[in-house]
């Protein structure tokens, strides 16, 4: 997936995306990081074609995103948003079945058996008949991931997927995303936790004020000055035994 001079402006708002050009390597985990209001989620919505691009183009497998029909796009790009809402009771299996809708006509019912592999991949098989609202936050997140995987996407987009998860589930999810990338899925996510982003990504995008500051391998971007400039806060990189380099925000001189 690639962005070429992509711009987007929200009506009557300053925030947006300006002239962004960059690539998301196939079969790898790319994480978009940047301060609040940098346009990370907007970028993700543009990649999912949830917002119309004002200028430039996004290509997927060499074709402009706009050339795909809604169904064809849903067969290639899946998105897991920050928090999903259900308006009524649904079981785990029913939610995951919705992920198969791009492969069926609207009047067809998705066979329950079709979702078995996705329930198995996400460890949800024993919970298939449970009501989603009775599950923990971590389990619910897995349900939405399973529904996205049921779309058999080439590109999986995730908007702050760890927000409502405890440390254990955060690690669990990150490792699962790495496994998915290893199967050939291009994973693109937005994360707030910089250390998690550096630790679990193959490729990073640093964005600020709607622009792409830089992109590259985590090892190449782990520079205190670059991060301090992007996040507008003093940053140091310290060595933590058994963990390696760790990014910490240090108090400003006046705070002391």
């Amino acid at each position, binding site marked *: 997936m690639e962005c070429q001079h992509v711009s987007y402006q929200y009506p009557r708002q300053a925030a947006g995306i300006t002239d962004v050009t960059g690539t998301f390597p196939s079969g790898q985990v790319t994480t978009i990081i940047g301060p609040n209001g940098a346009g990370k989620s907007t970028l993700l919505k543009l990649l999912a074609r*949830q917002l119309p691009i004002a200028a430039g183009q996004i290509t997927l497998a060499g074709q402009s995103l706009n050339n795909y029909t*809604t169904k064809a796009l*849903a067969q290639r790009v899946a998105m897991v948003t920050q928090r999903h809402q259900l*308006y009524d009771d649904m079981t785990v299996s*029913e939610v995951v079945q*919705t992920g198969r*809708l791009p492969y069926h006509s609207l*009047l067809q019912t998705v066979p329950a058996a079709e979702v078995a592999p996705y329930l198995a991949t996400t460890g949800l098989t024993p919970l298939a008949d449970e009501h989603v609202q009775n599950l923990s936050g971590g389990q619910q997140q897995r349900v939405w991931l399973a529904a996205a995987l049921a779309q058999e996407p080439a590109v999986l987009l995730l908007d702050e997927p760890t927000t409502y998860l405890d440390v254990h589930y955060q690690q669990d999810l990150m490792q699962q995303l790495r496994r998915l990338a290893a199967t050939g899925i291009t994973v693109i996510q937005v994360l707030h936790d910089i250390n998690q982003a550096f630790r679990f990504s193959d490729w990073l995008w640093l964005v600020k004020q709607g622009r792409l500051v830089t992109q590259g391998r985590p090892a190449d971007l782990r520079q205190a000055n670059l991060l301090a400039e992007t996040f507008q806060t003093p940053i140091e990189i310290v060595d933590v035994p058994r963990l390696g380099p760790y990014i910490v925000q240090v108090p400003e001189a006046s705070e002391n």
Partner: protein
Amino acid sequence: MKQHANWWYGGVIGLLLVTIAIALMAGTVWLGPRQLSVALSDHGSQAFVTVFSLRVPRILSSLICGGSLAVAGALFQAVFRNPIADPSILGISSAADFFKLGGAMLLPWLPGRAWLMALLGGLVALVILTSGRALADPFRLIIVGVALDATFVGLQQLLSSGATQVSHSTFNGLTWADATTLLILGVVGLFVALVLAPWANYLKLTDAALKNVGVPVKVIRWSLLLLGMYLATSVTAVVGAIPFVGIVVPNVARRLVGHDYQTLIPFSMLAGAWLMLAADTLGRTVIVPSEISAATMMAVIGGPFVIILLQRGRGLHGMSTR
């Protein structure tokens, strides 16, 4: 839940059969089972005329009306993502009633006038209801709906003071012609509802989630809304506005057979048919030879039900308009 659902299906079908039998026997003149079978075999008897010309069309009409109203309510609740959304509470039925009356006064020559005008009225109310910000806010939706209902009821009263044909909202006096009209309109609508039931399930997801899986949200939303409106206004065209069936039945049905619309819609159809027939049969037998209209019976049952539902329910959701 699925095993329970089968029991409840059996239960409601049993109730329906018993109530149909009672409705055939009960009335100003009570006919026992033996008299009933004699009456049905002797086509020249007064009892046969009573049963065949008066009771059967009335029973058929109330079954179709109850089923249609219950399904219309379930569809509205799915689309508006609001457990008390229903064509009667949102002003659709009263708009249909008003337009029907207006049509009778202004366009008496129009063929199929009552149904066409009721449908037009329902459409006008639906456009008003969905054009503003009421969609995003479930409380605003109900308030706008109640105001719309009051407006059309008021307009109808204004018009009916000079009218020769006044809306009655009762099954009393329905003929075979009325029953046939209802049967045709109702069966078509209910069949389509059964086919489109999975769409109601999709609307449990947010619009954004549906777009992600390539579902044309607007198409399914408007199809279900128009279908619900068609079912409700078809009843209004022939019988008049009957409140609360669409709220009471689907909400009880959810507790009994679960929230899957593919189970809920057929169950609501049967339960709505039973409730309407039971209410009408009760209404025409408790104070013989006079009777209580179906609309009054339903108001007495439905009003308190909605209050309990709102006091104890999980709250209203509303739909995203983005």
